[in-house]
């Protein structure tokens, strides 16, 4: 067989070498995104789109990624979607696209830490990186025109006011501002309700522009009617409600045993002392705000104390720091005139009350509610004036001061129990029982948790592993 010519051999060798070289030099295939998904971010008030995907391969360190989102339709005034030609585009860059499993998935799961297990996303595959982006539509597509109009209108109002323009002109400008602010609210609602297209793109060094990868997805954000991440909270509340109703019904049939506390016995004693000595009973209902629950409990207790004082013929003085609380107390006390508003300033109130104590020398002082730094000033002045003092507070940081300066103190939940215990009302006793049962349940969980956690830390394998899993299971609720 004749040998092929040298030139042909050289060409064949060159072709054989060039094949792999051309494969190397040609554009690489775009990176694949497994299970690419985009949709409404769940369990929120709408306006947020979520994008999720996995990728298996290692990215080059200089690869640039971004998720592009384009507005393709917005609702009109009647709620019908109107498509947009060349709608605005915005983008969001994922934090990192590295392959470190921990770094990528921990932030992802961190968002759900503390939520019950039914709110957890699917467990990430340890062999793949899971990425999750939340795209807040108002951040990406702020209604700039409406925002600028509102800003300009505010400037115009400032200019009119500072130049001393007539009142009608200023008022008209303010009305225009209200219209523009309403337009801004509507514009924001339209953005949140619009339709969008999401496309993942990447760019490597040497590439002229970003290239798409993965399919483009059309999405819209919708508000949800129920947040299942709070379902455990709802279940517990409903359970407690049921417990209260059952306990109250049971208490009406047969009143439960209520343990007497020295501090609870001290309240009627304070009333009797005031009646016997002919000096007033000073009662303070101290609150940060009318709306707090210790306020309700304190007002209920005040009502009971007032009824007893009225029966015993004792005078009462009830200075208030909050006018709303004073208004409520006037409805609950036997003598509405006992309630006096002093001032809303914390230390001015303290100075006024200590002055009252120094002048009137009350026989007894009752401190009910949430106290601040003034608690010791009040209690020490009361002690100096020779009063019998009882405090009932939920303020954990003031308890030490009140315990040292007062004769008796009801701490924490005892404040909430006081009115029920004083009234002797079966329904009140029933709710106390429900409260105790709830506390017993919590204490049981705490004890079990402490035992399991201690076991997980101290016991040998495989027991410690099982206990750690038990802890995780408990944390999953």
């Amino acid at each position, binding site marked *: 067989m004749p040998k092929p010519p040298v030139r042909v051999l050289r060409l064949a060798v060159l072709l054989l070498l060039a094949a792999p070289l051309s494969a190397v030099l040609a554009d690489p295939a775009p990176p694949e995104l497994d299970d690419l998904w985009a949709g409404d971010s769940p369990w929120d008030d709408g306006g947020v789109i979520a994008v999720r995907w996995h990728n298996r391969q290692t990215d080059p360190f200089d690869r640039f990624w971004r998720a592009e989102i384009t507005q393709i339709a917005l609702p009109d005034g009647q709620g019908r979607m109107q498509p947009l030609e060349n709608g605005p585009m915005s983008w969001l860059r994922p934090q990192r696209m590295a392959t470190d499993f921990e770094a990528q998935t921990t932030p992802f799961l961190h968002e759900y830490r503390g939520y019950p297990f039914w709110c957890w996303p699917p467990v990430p595959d340890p062999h793949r990186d899971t990425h999750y982006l939340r795209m807040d539509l108002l*951040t990406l597509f*702020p209604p700039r025109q409406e*925002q*600028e109009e509102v*800003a300009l209108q*505010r*400037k115009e109002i*400032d200019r009119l006011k500072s130049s001393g323009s007539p009142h009608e002109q200023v008022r008209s400008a303010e009305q225009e501002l209200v219209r523009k602010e309403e337009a801004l609210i509507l514009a924001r609602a339209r953005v949140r309700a619009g339709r969008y297209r999401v496309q993942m793109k990447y760019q490597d060094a040497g590439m002229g522009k970003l290239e798409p990868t993965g399919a483009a997805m059309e999405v819209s954000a919708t508000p949800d009617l129920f947040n299942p991440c709070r379902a455990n909270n709802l279940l517990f509340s409903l359970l407690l409600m049921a417990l209260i109703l059952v306990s109250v019904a049971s208490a009406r049939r047969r009143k439960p045993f209520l343990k007497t506390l020295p501090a609870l016995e001290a309240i009627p004693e304070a009333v009797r002392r005031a009646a016997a000595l002919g000096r007033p009973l000073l009662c303070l209902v101290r609150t*940060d*705000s009318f709306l707090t629950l210790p306020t309700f409990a304190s007002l209920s207790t005040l009502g009971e104390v007032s009824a007893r004082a009225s029966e015993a013929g004792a005078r009462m003085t009830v200075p208030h720091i909050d006018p709303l609380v004073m208004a409520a107390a006037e409805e609950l006390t036997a003598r509405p005139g006992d309630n006096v508003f002093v001032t809303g*300033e*914390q*230390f001015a109130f303290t100075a006024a009350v200590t002055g009252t104590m120094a002048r009137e020398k009350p026989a007894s002082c009752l401190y009910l509610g949430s106290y*601040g*730094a003034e608690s010791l000033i009040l209690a020490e002045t009361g002690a*100096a004036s020779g009063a019998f003092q009882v405090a009932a507070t939920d303020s*954990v*940081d*003031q308890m030490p001061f009140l315990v040292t300066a007062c004769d008796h103190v009801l701490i924490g939940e005892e404040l909430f129990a006081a009115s029920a215990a004083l009234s002797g009302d079966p329904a009140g006793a029933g709710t106390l029982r429900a409260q105790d049962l709830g506390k017993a349940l919590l204490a049981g969980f705490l004890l079990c948790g402490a035992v399991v956690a201690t076991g997980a830390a101290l016991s040998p394998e495989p027991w410690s592993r099982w206990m750690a899993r038990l802890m995780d299971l408990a944390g999953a609720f």
Partner: protein
Amino acid sequence: MGRRRIFLLLALVMWLPMVHPFRFPGLSVTSSVQALHDRIENLPSGANILVSFDFNPGTKAELEPQARAILRHAFKRRLTVLVLGLWPDGWGMTQRIVRDCAATAKLPVKEGRDFILLGSQLGDLNVSLGLGQDIAAVFPRDARGIPLADIPPLRHIRTLKDMHLIVSLGAGEPGPVTWVMFAGDRYRIPMAAGTTSGNVSALQPYVQGGQLLGLVSGMKGAAEYEMLTKEDGSATRGMDSLTLGAFLLIGLVLLANVNDWRKGRS
């Protein structure tokens, strides 16, 4: 010993160091204060921090030194500081403190460039929730009356989520707990607090739980912060009075117990 004598002795002992400073040694920095200092120290120049003055003149004795120490540090690091308050009756005091810190800063500090006084709003959680949506909706203008859109640093700061750190200085409600619950936890923004020494225990659960990265406690905490930033502020000078007052207190307690023991014997 009579109450009045105790008060007189205490007043004398605490006044003495103000006339003749002793500079007692031994101040050491707690981990909570160190953590806040390190966080501010490691923020890049131009980072945004929000400082909320949630107190009124009643508690300024302990909280003002903390505020000054933190603000001076932030100005030194060239951070953009947004200042607001949740207690309207403390706003006048807040403006004076911030402007005074700016005027006495070593580097030039300008309102509207390095710090912005947003204002004060009573509304506690609604304020922090609203700030999480849009700062300009809650505070359309700053304390000088200038619309926020016209303030250059605020063109890039729209919501609380643009903050690198929130520091709440307060000892009541609304205060640090409000910010932790409705800003720190909700928007995952790093949070720190400063409070009076009597209120520290109420915030310890949040430090232990990691919701507060740092906690400055009372005048001692402010003195620790001043030590870290190498400043000689009012807290450092006040530590002498605090030291002598504490020793007097212990001495009186021990004296009272010795007296009781002697009476018991006789």
